[in-house]
């Protein structure tokens, strides 16, 4: 029953608070008056009686407060009281509120934005059923196997490894897949998936566009637990060679290409020119197993011969062709180690038996099961380091913002001392006042957090757009706020509110009561004993802000220098005014030798264009991140060791088009492009020459691959060119061999005298006239290609500079605030000094000295921290060491310059103090 009565009195109080208050007041008054009447009856005079009665009773307000406490609802009542009061106080000082809320919004917003990226790239699970049960299959062995065909895709967990002691990959052979599938008992389902080659052409109603998709086993959707939105998803019946080819589209693609029309189910579309029937649309949100690289369609594995040129019947059943990737769902009862052990036996048996076995038993082939909860980790592997660097940077900014607000609140608490001392004198517990001040800072943090979420959403969307437009592949990062992000924002807002409010609240309420009540406001602030302490906290905060800014500025400086080094580096060729594009001939009639001839014809046609200086094509464009290599050795040499060299198949006029300087020898003749009989002519670079032949002349010398056992050597050197970068700017130039391109394919390069993009429509027309199924795809300039390859560096340089500038601004605001407060506080003292004969410049010096000392101490602390911390970004740098004196000095000079500017206004205000006014100032 007491619970009920407690609840009743609780309710009563909430609903009829004012009435309760007046009743309590009446009751206590009655008590005192009755007591007084008794005293009067005992002979005490009237006023004396009333006074004594009050004295006997003790503090009325305190009794009232205790009565309110006894009612047991005080917490919520007090909370509302605090909120109302806090709101009023904040409204009274709009300048302070604006600066504080903005600083917090910037800090919290930046943190939330980067956290959204981290969430999307690294933390989100796949949108499938029970993702924690999913694993990928990966094999590893002591040596790399000899394969007939090996397709490996980026994103295999732990990277594809091929060294002399360890090899591993996610690609299995089809027989291995079948054996594992049939003999395993640790998975409740096992599926196979193979990314379709590059982008495929999807033709709907005569219109062709490109899309990315996977070939999957029939149980793909059922194992993952992904339902359909329209029609159906694939089932095992679709995955037999006799089944009619069907295709399932992703929800996003269905929305954009088909305008969410449910009637598309059952219609026919062309995939690379081959008719497929639309079976259905997958559930919204599902876009394949690779985070960041969404798929638009899925087709059964059995349909591969029809539209994917890479596959032919012989390769499929071959145990030495690795091309199938697998994923599986663990049974709830199985653990990973059990599963791995179970699969090892099956796998080892399948790869060490039969003719053409991949491995011998001593190679110890075994299976690993990396987790697939978050999908294929290519995006994670590429971006986790930069994202962590950025997260550290925004944490620093948040700390600076926090210190800023704490400093502001501290000054404010000191200014409100009179008010606080009156409250304490009236009986408020210290804890209560601290709670009220904390409520104010929490409200600021809440406002900052709310505004910060808006900043964050805008910032994260722009960043995500930057990712999509500029990285190698069109990454898609979904930064929509979800519960985790909102929880994160809420968490740090609360943390920041408490952090920045606690110290000022505690300090502001530690007072010598009598002194505080007696003295005037300025007298209070002037008193050396108490305020000396308070100011050192404020100064400490400014020093901390300066130190953190230096840290950020140093890191930003190093990253910017890295970018500048990479962008201004001599790549060995001239990247300006070069147009790159690929040819998509999959839907046309051009195949094999016919296609090769087409490429050569096109090269001649393009070279003859007005506006085109020269034209060529090669296997992969320079600085695209892709390269191929091989081992070569000098035949019949005493030293049988082979050297790994880069190799690039190139078309006619390649060196002239890319302006790679020819040093000796000759180019390839047209005839050499047609034949491939050994010895093939190759052109090598200087590094190659030095590596194999030292100072000797390499022209006319032969060279072969280690396994080559023919009578004539494989390659003959016919020319030498200067060193040029191949796949990336960071990588040092390796020995490179350029060969005449012997197959159909590659990227065209056109060097022009004008803006390369202007040639695109012209080229399209030419292709259209030859065959209307020839398409120009991926047009970009070489400069754009380089920018894409420098994406990570550009991202880091621009963001870290932004954050560093932000930190600098915040630190200067902090310094400015502190000095202004100092000047206001010591106005009387300055007046006295001036009256006693100090000049304006002495006063100026006073203020500027204080500022300089703070900045100097902060810089020292910051540089010390930077010396330790910058080595963490060491792996991201190029051409500059983590401890770079030039950068550090520059940063300190910048900070001093900006800080001096911040000191200027308070110093001027101090210098303009009129002694007469100051002395009379109260």
């Amino acid at each position: 029953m007491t619970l009920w009565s407690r609840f009743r009195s609780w309710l009563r109080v909430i609903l009829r608070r004012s009435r309760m208050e007046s009743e309590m007041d009446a009751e206590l008054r009655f008590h005192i008056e009755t007591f007084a009447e008794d005293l009067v009856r005992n002979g005490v005079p009237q006023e004396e009686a009333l006074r004594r009665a009050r004295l006997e009773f003790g503090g009325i307000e305190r009794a009232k407060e205790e009565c309110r406490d006894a009612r047991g609802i005080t917490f919520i009542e007090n909370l509302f009281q605090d909120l109302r009061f806090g709101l009023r106080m904040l409204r009274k000082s709009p300048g302070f509120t604006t600066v504080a809320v903005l600083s917090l919004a910037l800090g919290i917003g930046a943190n939330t934005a980067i956290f959204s990226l981290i969430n999307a790239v690294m933390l989100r699970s796949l949108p499938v059923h029970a993702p924690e049960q999913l694993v990928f299959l990966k094999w590893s062995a002591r040596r790399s196997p000899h394969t007939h065909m090996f397709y490996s895709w980026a994103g295999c967990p732990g990277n594809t490894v091929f060294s002399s002691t360890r090899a591993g990959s996610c690609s299995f052979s089809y027989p291995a897949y079948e054996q594992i599938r049939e003999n395993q008992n640790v998975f409740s389902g096992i599926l196979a998936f193979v990314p379709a080659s590059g982008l495929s052409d999807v033709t709907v109603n005569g219109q062709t566009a490109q899309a990315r998709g996977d070939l999957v086993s029939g149980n793909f959707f059922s194992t993952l637990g992904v339902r359909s939105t329209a029609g159906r998803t694939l089932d095992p019946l679709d995955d037999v060679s006799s089944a009619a080819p069907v295709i399932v589209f992703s929800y996003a693609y269905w929305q954009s290409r088909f305008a969410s029309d449910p009637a598309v189910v059952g219609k026919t579309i062309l995939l690379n020119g081959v008719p497929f029937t639309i079976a259905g649309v997958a559930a919204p949100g599902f876009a394949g197993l690779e985070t960041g690289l969404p798929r638009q369609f899925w087709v059964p594995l059995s349909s591969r011969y029809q539209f994917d040129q890479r596959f032919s019947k012989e390769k499929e059943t071959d145990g030495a062709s690795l091309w199938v990737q697998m994923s599986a769902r663990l049974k709830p009862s199985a653990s990973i180690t059990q599963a791995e052990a179970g699969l090892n036996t099956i796998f080892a048996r399948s790869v060490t038996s039969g003719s053409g076995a991949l491995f011998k038993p001593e190679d110890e082939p075994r299976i690993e099961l990396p987790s697939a909860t978050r999908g294929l980790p290519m995006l994670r592997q590429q971006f986790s380091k930069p994202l962590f660097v950025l997260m550290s940077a925004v944490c620093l900014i948040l700390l600076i913002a926090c210190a800023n607000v704490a400093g502001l609140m501290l000054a404010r608490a000191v200014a409100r001392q009179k008010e606080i001392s009156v409250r304490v004198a009236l009986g408020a517990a210290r804890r209560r006042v601290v709670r009220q001040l904390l409520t104010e800072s929490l409200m600021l943090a809440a406002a900052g957090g709310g505004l910060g979420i808006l900043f964050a959403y805008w910032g994260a969307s722009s960043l995500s757009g930057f990712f999509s437009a500029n990285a190698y592949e069109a990454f898609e990062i979904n930064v929509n706020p979800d519960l985790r992000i909102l929880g994160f924002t809420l968490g740090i807002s609360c943390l920041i509110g408490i952090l920045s409010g606690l110290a000022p609240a505690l300090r502001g309420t530690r007072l010598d009561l009598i002194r505080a009540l007696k003295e005037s406001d300025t007298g209070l602030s002037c008193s050396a004993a108490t305020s000396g302490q308070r100011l050192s906290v404020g100064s400490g905060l400014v020093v901390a802000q300066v130190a953190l800014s230096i840290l950020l500025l140093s890191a930003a400086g190093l990253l910017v220098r890295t970018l500048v080094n990479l962008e201004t580096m001599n790549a060995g060729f001239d990247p300006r005014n070069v147009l790159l594009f690929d040819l998509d001939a999959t839907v046309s009639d051009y195949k094999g030798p016919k296609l090769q001839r087409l490429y050569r014809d096109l090269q001649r046609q393009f070279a003859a264009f007005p506006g085109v200086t020269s034209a060529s094509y090669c296997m992969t464009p320079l600085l695209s991140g892709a390269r191929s290599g091989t081992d070569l050795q000098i035949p019949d040499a005493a030293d049988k060791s082979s050297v790994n060299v880069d190799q690039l198949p190139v078309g006619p006029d390649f060196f002239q088009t890319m302006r790679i300087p020819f040093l000796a020898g000759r180019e390839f003749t047209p005839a050499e492009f047609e034949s491939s009989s050994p010895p093939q002519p190759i052109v090598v670079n200087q590094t190659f020459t030095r590596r194999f032949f030292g100072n000797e002349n390499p022209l006319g010398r032969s060279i072969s691959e280690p396994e080559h056992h023919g009578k004539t050597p494989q390659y003959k050197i016919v020319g030498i060119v200067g060193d040029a970068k191949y796949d990336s700017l960071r990588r040092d130039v390796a020995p490179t061999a350029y060969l005449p391109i012997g197959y159909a394919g590659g990227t065209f390069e056109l060097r022009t005298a004008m803006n390369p993009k202007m040639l695109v429509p012209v080229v399209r027309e030419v292709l259209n006239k030859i065959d209307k199924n020839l398409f120009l795809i991926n047009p970009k300039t070489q400069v754009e290609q380089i920018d894409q390859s420098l994406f990570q560096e550009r991202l880091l340089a621009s963001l870290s500079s932004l954050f560093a500038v932000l930190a600098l601004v915040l630190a200067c605001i902090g310094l400015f605030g502190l000095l202004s407060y100092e000047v206001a506080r010591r106005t009387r003292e300055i007046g006295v000094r001036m009256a006693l004969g100090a000049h304006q410049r002495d006063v100026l010096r006073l203020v500027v000295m204080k500022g300089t000392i703070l900045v100097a101490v902060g810089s020292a602390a910051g540089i010390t921290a930077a010396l330790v911390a910058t080595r963490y970004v060491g792996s991201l740098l190029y051409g500059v060491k983590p401890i770079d004196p030039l950068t550090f000095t520059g940063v300190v000079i910048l900070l001093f310059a900006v800080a001096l500017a911040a000191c200027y206004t308070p110093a001027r205000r101090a210098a303009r103090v009129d002694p007469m006014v100051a002395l009379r100032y109260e």
Partner: protein
Amino acid sequence: MDKQLDLLQGTLDMLILKAVSLGPLHGYGILLRIQQISKDRLEIQQGSLYPALYRLEHQGWITSEWGESENNRKAKYYRLTAAGKRRLQSEAEKWNRMADVIAAILGTTPEEV
């Protein structure tokens, strides 16, 4: 007058309940009655009376209503509830038992140990 004894909070509650059990009273009256019953050997600090009353009411041992006092003024009268009566009984029993135990301890002679 004997030196005033210091009172613990729990004891004050018990005394208030007892005072009120003898008939509904307003706060000042409770004060007087306690003084009266204790024959002036006990004096309650006036400031702690009302918080105790509010607490007891919140816990449901007493209930209040406004009425008219002797001098025709409005006053809040407190009355014991059934639960309060039971509470008073159990508290009194506890107190007596405690008193016995303490008396026994204090009364031990060196030989009994």
